[in-house]
């Protein structure tokens, strides 16, 4: 006699088969009309439409705006200005000194972003790797710890920023704790260096779990017999790590590096809420510059913002290609191929 659960499963299976059978006739008709090679396009068409509307069309509009001026939003009302917006952005006496540039905030935000990306990505990948290595071992409450490290990823960036603002503000809980132990309170978010440090810290706290998960998946895919063989050959832990773990984890590390770098360069939401780009422009990053220029100024310079976003896109493209090339080279040299 079948149980209710088995009966329900049987019903579901037959309903599913029925639905598939019902699709059979129209699919055959479509296939006859389009031909077999073209039917693939039918499946990708919905995605192409969405991508086209919400990704490629905005890119085209962005290009158009970057070469037009004025404050009008409608493309037809915007005068063509050629490369003027780029000329304004790149008008500098000394590119290493933002204060010598016409758009000093653009260059300050570029330098801030570069500094942030370099520090945040290196530190985050290191911490993610160490955490993944620890959580890959048989430790007590391993599932719990994995949850603890992954949990911040589930939070909205605004929530992350508000939590940390509550901790770090002048009358926040961190200063309350400092005062409690007899120390002086610190202006964590209004001193340039501290504010920058906390931007990196909060960003790592919020995103590390995601990258840790990718690395953990990579670690679990490494066959255990390799380690057993290494142990039989009396390989030291460092040698096992450098000769087995690291090379086999390299594809995952590259993914983590590329994603981390893109994310770091695009940083905006949590920092905007946490520091508002201050003190001064100490934590103003490139996306905030674009947002402010295009949308938060009383006189909105969409063209300048579009030009800056193109510069950002090209920088990201360059960085990603460079990183992929480097990783290919390292893979090739490791496997002895590619010469």
């Amino acid at each position: 006699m079948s149980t209710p659960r088995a009966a329900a499963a049987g019903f579901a299976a037959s309903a599913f088969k029925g639905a598939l059978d019902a699709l059979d006739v129209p699919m055959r008709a479509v296939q006859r009309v389009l031909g077999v090679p073209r039917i693939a396009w039918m499946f990708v068409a919905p995605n192409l439409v969405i991508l086209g509307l919400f990704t490629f069309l905005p890119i085209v509009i962005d290009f158009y705006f970057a070469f037009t001026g004025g404050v009008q939003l409608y493309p037809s009302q915007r005068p063509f200005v050629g490369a003027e917006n780029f000329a304004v952005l790149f008008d500098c006496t000394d590119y290493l000194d933002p204060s010598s540039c016409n758009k000093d905030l653009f260059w300050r935000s570029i330098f801030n972003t570069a500094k942030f990306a370099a520090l945040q990505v290196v530190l985050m990948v290191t911490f993610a790797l160490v955490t993944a290595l620890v959580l890959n071992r048989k430790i007590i409450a391993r599932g719990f710890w994995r949850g603890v490290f992954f949990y911040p990823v589930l939070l909205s960036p605004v929530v992350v920023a508000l939590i940390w603002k509550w901790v770090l503000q002048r009358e926040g809980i961190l200063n309350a704790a400092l005062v409690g132990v007899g120390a002086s309170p610190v202006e964590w978010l209004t001193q340039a260096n501290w504010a920058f440090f906390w931007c990196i810290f909060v960003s790592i706290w919020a995103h590390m779990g995601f990258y840790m998960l990718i690395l953990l998946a990579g670690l679990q895919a490494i066959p255990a017999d390799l380690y057993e063989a290494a142990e039989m050959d009396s390989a030291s832990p460092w040698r096992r790590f450098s000769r087995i773990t690291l090379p086999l984890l390299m594809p995952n590390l590259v993914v983590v590096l590329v994603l981390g770098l893109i994310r770091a360069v695009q940083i905006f939401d949590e920092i905007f809420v946490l520091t508002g780009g201050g003190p001064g422009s100490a934590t103003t990053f490139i996306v905030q510059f674009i947002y402010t220029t295009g949308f938060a100024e009383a006189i909105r310079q969409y063209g300048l913002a579009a030009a800056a976003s193109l510069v950002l896109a090209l920088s990201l493209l360059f960085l990603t290609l460079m990183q992929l090339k480097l990783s290919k080279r390292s893979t090739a040299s490791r496997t002895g191929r590619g010469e």
Partner: protein
Amino acid sequence: MHTSTRPFTPFRVTSFPRLVAAAIIALASGVAGAGEIRVACYSDGNECEVTQDLAKRFEAQNADVKVIVDKVPYKAILEQLPVQLAAGEGPDIARVTDLGGLAKYYLDITPYVKDPKYWEANFGQTLKWLRADPADKGIYGMMTQLTVTGPYVNKTLFEQAKIPLPGPKATWDEWADAARKVAKATQTPYAIAFDRSGHRFMGPAISAGAKVFDAKGNLVIDDGYKAMAKRFYDWNRDGTSPKDIWGGVGGNTYKDAFEEFANGRVVMYLSGSWQIRRMDTQIGKNFDWIAVPNPCGPAACTGIPGGAAFVALKRTKNPRDAGRFLDYLASEPVYTEYMARTENIPAHAGVAKKGVDYKISTAAKAALDTFVAEVPKLAPVAYDIQGYKYNRAIFNPTAARLGQAIAGEMSLDDAVKRIGSDMDEQVKAAQK
């Protein structure tokens, strides 16, 4: 306010055309139906709640119109509304503060109001703030409040320090000296705080001699402006003012210093009349607070007028209803009630003349009287800058660049130069 009373029925598709029709109706109703007007309202205190109450009454008298009041953050009015309007979207009516800057999107409601002369007679002084140019005679909306910038003082701290309050003609330097002495005697961290806003800074700057406009009517950074910038910068560097208000955030981000004042961390606080309700409800009896006349400089003793206005917007599909609703709000009894309940200074000449019976505390009443007394003392250029459509081209860089200088990122001279160049660039871009 408007909830559907129709019972829920399971969705059943009987035909494709019917589905399409249902989708079109659903989309259309999401925007605005016939006889329906949406009001984007931000609140300084309880303005949106009072507007909602009055809207209900208007609906009872005009069964063919539905008014939906959407309460939005002030930031949405500053940043999202202009983009929506530029794209031909947005509400039918909005409560705005960039009065001249958005003028090109306003709808002239003259054909829809009962008596245009009533509007001219009672709102004549401020109607021009909403007009694109002096030749324009349209009626676009009405000021929901007239505001004046000015300082608040923690009177209790002065009493504790046994230091007399400077008189009505005292200068900014005299106030700063007195406030510093009070701060020192009472161990209050700071003497003076300004809201982080170019608008707030402009009153003291005009008092210090800033002309704001050159002979051709273009914005200018002159010696008066520089003198106040130097004074304010020095206050922030020497600890008279809390550095984190202006230096602690970036760009032109608005940040008020109300919390500093309410927590007794600052002796004197430059903000404006719109804070009275907040002072009254949040400080209450914690300490005695008073509003004092704007301190003087060599040129004037002025604040800046301002305020918020309900304006009808061109994109509306129901111009007649938008006009009727604004006409209702502008009628004398309704406007009087609105002022009394929101505790704002009226922009309606008739209401101002008769006076408003505010149901507020003695402290709030005294503060309101002080601000009302400031109105005739405002410098003419203070009105001019408020009515100038590109006024944010000077307000925003003031906050951003002085903030950078205060944070130690650039020298004051560089900051002032940058304010000038940012201002010129923005006006030039706007005129393209």
